[in-house]
């Protein structure tokens, strides 16, 4: 299959990935059921994950791997979870993306990988205090478009 990322883009990402610190586990959730962008999303993630050895990619199906989808609170396809990999343990950071990360959102994906790799949110003390002490679930859905 033709590559989605050309050599110039790959070399830029490689440079950006020099900031990677700890291993990152990327989880892809696809579906056989009416999923227009699943194949492209999977291929894009495979190409990104191949760029740096600190990255690994798990491929799952929303229906066939329903248990894993539920564990990571994934209910759409394509969906991407960017998690921390500590030894054999995959630690969910609650970071997900539903849809193909194309255009501007491709940059978001790359930045999210670097963020998780650093294991630090970089937020202010005020934000950290409030969020750490939340006693009820918080679900943030950020709607974006590829342009």
């Amino acid at each position: 299959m033709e590559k989605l990322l050309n050599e110039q883009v790959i070399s830029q990402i490689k440079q950006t990935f020099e900031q990677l610190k700890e291993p990152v586990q990327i989880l892809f959730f696809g579906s056989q059921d009416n999923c227009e962008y699943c194949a492209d999303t999977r291929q894009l993630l495979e190409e990104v994950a191949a760029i740096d050895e600190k990255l690994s990619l798990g491929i799952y199906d929303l229906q066939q791997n329903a248990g894993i989808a539920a564990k990571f609170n994934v209910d759409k396809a394509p969906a991407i979870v960017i998690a921390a990999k500590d030894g054999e343990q995959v630690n969910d950071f609650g970071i997900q993306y539903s849809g193909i990360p194309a255009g501007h959102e491709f940059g978001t994906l790359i930045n999210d990988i670097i963020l998780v790799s650093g294991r630090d949110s970089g937020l202010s003390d005020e934000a950290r205090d409030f969020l750490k002490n939340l006693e009820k679930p918080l679900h943030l859905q950020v709607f974006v478009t590829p342009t």
Partner: protein
Amino acid sequence: MLAHQMAMENPGMIRAEGVEATEFPELANQFNVRGVPQTIINDGKGIVVGALPEKNLLAEIMRAVN
């Protein structure tokens, strides 16, 4: 993504999901998404239009969860 940074602080409680609006139009319509980015807090308890600085988004979250 700022929402993703927030989830990192308490992943047991916080789930931050970037949603590609054109791929999930029913969901986007449900929340009346007209521009992007638009952040929906707890299924509509709070709505933030545009990319706000951290302290402003945090203030809206505080309002929405209380």
